[in-house]
């Protein structure tokens, strides 16, 4: 064989192939396509050439031939693009396989995988709760799994344990707060597809108030009670006073605000009638028989109750001060008397002299 001849033939074949491969494309253009069962499934076969063609065919590895819709479009440079569109509104597991797009000259292949993921939800158990994701239609070599809760990935640690297949997540010694929506995220090795499936950890409704057992409030002040609830699905919060449900529509003083997990009850302009037990109740449709309540006793005190002791104290202090004042006056009088005493004697002596003389004068006269 002549080397240059072989070489040039090969080059020609490769060039033709390359040139022609630009013409025939398959969309999406990955090597592998993953779909979730029930998703809309679409494959396109596209040929660009000088003129429209009817020759485009879509085949499956098991021999099925698919008919789709053919459409043509003229491009700016005069070539025509023919597109064969195959779509299915709901993918089925049986749709998985190798699809071939061909136009008698060449062919393109696409591997399509269809999976079905079944979430295995869990309900609260004080020892351990296991959540799982069952997958059909793919093998463990095709994907890796990451478990997440609220966009935070979970790893093997004291609280969480992920199985070898990574298809189960175990939550160890869970609390009520751990309830919520978890996701198992499948990352497929080929095909650039991620799949996120929510898995629920159902927890019974739980209500708590961070206050002490009872609270004293003054008349005319405002009552603010905060109730924190946990549970999955998010429980409904109802406020009660005794047996009566509190309705903001009926009483303008009452308002209930707050976003999950907190609920706030506001009552303004408290009066003595507002005294009693206030209850925050968390209930959930998922757990019809479990509701949880948190109670607090509210006592209303007279605003001016402590004013009377104050007035009494004012009186007491005034009396004491008067007593001290009188004592001080007496004491300073004593001191003055002592001091004056010395000078007084001298003065008296002189006085007496004068008086005696006067008396004598008077007598004489």
């Amino acid at each position, binding site marked *: 064989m002549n080397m240059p001849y072989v070489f040039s033939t090969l080059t020609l074949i490769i060039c033709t192939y390359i040139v022609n491969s630009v013409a025939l494309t398959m969309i999406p253009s990955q090597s592998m396509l993953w779909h979730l069962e029930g998703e809309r499934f679409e494959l396109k076969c596209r040929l660009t050439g000088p003129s429209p063609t009817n020759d485009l065919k879509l085949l499956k590895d098991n021999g099925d031939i698919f008919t789709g819709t053919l459409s043509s479009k003229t491009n700016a440079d005069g070539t025509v693009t023919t597109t064969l569109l195959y779509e299915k509104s709901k993918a089925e597991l049986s749709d998985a396989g190798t699809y071939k797009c061909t136009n008698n000259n060449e062919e393109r292949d696409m591997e399509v995988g269809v999976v079905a993921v079944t979430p295995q939800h869990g309900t609260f158990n004080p020892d351990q709760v296991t959540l799982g994701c069952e997958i059909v239609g793919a093998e463990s070599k095709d994907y890796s799994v990451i478990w997440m809760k609220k966009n935070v990935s979970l790893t093997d640690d004291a609280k969480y344990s992920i199985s070898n297949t990574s298809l189960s997540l175990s939550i160890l010694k869970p609390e009520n707060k751990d309830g919520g929506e978890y996701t198992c995220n499948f990352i497929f090795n080929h095909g650039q597809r991620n799949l996120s499936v929510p898995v629920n950890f159902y927890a019974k409704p739980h209500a708590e108030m961070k206050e002490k057992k009872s609270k*004293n*409030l*003054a008349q005319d002040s405002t009552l603010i009670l905060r109730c924190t609830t946990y549970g999955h699905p998010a429980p409904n919060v109802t406020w009660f006073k005794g047996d009566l449900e509190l309705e903001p529509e009926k009483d303008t003083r009452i308002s209930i605000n707050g976003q999950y997990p907190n609920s706030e009850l506001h009552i303004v302009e408290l009066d003595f009638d507002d005294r009693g037990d206030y209850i925050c109740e968390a209930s959930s449709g998922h757990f019809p028989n479990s509701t949880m309540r948190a109670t607090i006793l509210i006592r209303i*005190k007279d605003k001016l109750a402590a*004013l009377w002791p104050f007035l009494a*104290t004012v009186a007491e*202090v005034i009396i004491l001060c008067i007593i001290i004042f009188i004592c001080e006056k007496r004491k300073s009088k004593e001191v003055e008397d002592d001091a004056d005493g010395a000078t007084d004697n001298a003065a008296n002596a002189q006085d007496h002299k004068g008086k005696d003389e006067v008396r004598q004068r008077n007598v004489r006269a």
Partner: protein
Amino acid sequence: MGNSNFLEDKGGHYGIVIIIAAFMIQFLAFGIAESIGIYNIEFLDNFDTTATDVSLIGAINIGVFLGAGPVASYLMNKFGYREICLAGSVLSTVGLVCVPFAPSMHALYVFYGLFTGLGYCLAYIPSHVLSGLYFERHRSLATGVVTSGSGLGAVIFPILIQYLIEEYTWQGSFFILACLNLQACVFAALLRPLSAEKIKDSDSQLDRTKNIEQEKMLLGDKCVEDENAAALEKNGNQSHVEETTSKKLNKKWKERYSNIFGNFNFVIYFISNLLWNMGVSIIMVFGAEYFTLKGQSKVDASQLVMLFGLGTFFGGILSGALGNVRQLNRIWIYNVGTLVTGICSLIFPAEIFHSYTGFAFLCFSWGIWFGVILGLLVVVLADILSTHALGDGMGYLMFANGAGCLSGPPLAGLLVDLYGGFDSAFYLSGVVTVLACIIMIAIPIKHRCHPVMQLQVDHHITKSELVILNSAEGGNEL
């Protein structure tokens, strides 16, 4: 001269009554002023406001309480100690009573911050100064015991207030506090003024002798005589002018002002006070938060803060007793107090102490040495200025205290924002307090340098007059 008997010190038996009265006034004033933080959460709930605004209430109170010192001095010299103390007690009670009726935060700033703060200032300064004037030989012990009242207040009032809020709601608790506060009026009424001769006596050589001994230890013998000459010269001038009780304003205000601020020692002491107040206020403001941050529960943190008060209680008495000992120089005890307090502040961020017992130990020791500083406050002031200027000097000194208390926390807050974490606040506090100690060293240094030259320049006396004065003084020395 030795009035070794406590009861026979200058003021006589009545001195005990003065001590009790001043103790109780400090107990009430500082107890309530330092425990106002407990109401923060109630104010936050009741008024629609922020935590910064709420903490401003306490800050205004302390600022006015200490900063209005000069005002209190002026008034008490004009109207009398007892009268002003009484006015202060009434004013502070009025402020407290109005708090439950306050419609807004601004009203609280006025009622609690201004009225009560000013009232406490007017009540505290006369009582504390008088407790110092009534004693001469035992002045240190007297003022030390009186100061420990503030420590006790800081321990008891938080517990009491918690109970009162529970029982009577926060509004009611203020009425009850006003009841307690009103008792200060009774104690104020007991503050019988000291008679004229007794105060004049203190300017005589009897007092000078004690001061001379103090100064000898501080400065070294050779400077002392010149100091005495200068002091005697000053006193000589003054006794001509001043005649009677502290009530009469014989001197013009300007003259007295320059008397006090012209005294180099006083200026140093003033700056030292400003510095350690900055440090101390930082610890008081950031302490509880720091403890909760480092893992203590809220209850534990408030208990630790109470240990500050308990330590102060014992520290006051300790310093009083130590100051009484003739052989010990009180200014040096004050220096040691500031130094160790500063060191304790610096140690707070150290990891080893970050447990309940560790913190408790640090808090208590800090409290003790802080109590030492407080207890010696008046007595060192009396050593630096003479007793007749004590009233004025106290006022200005309290102003320094107030300025320090107001500037400390914001500066620390700035550092915390810059560097994150509260450690920087404690470092600042420690550094500033140690600085307060170091700056006091300027006193012996300055006087070692040129005492004689100073004398000739300040007093325009000739060398011959100096000799005469020296010999006159020498004759009267014990």
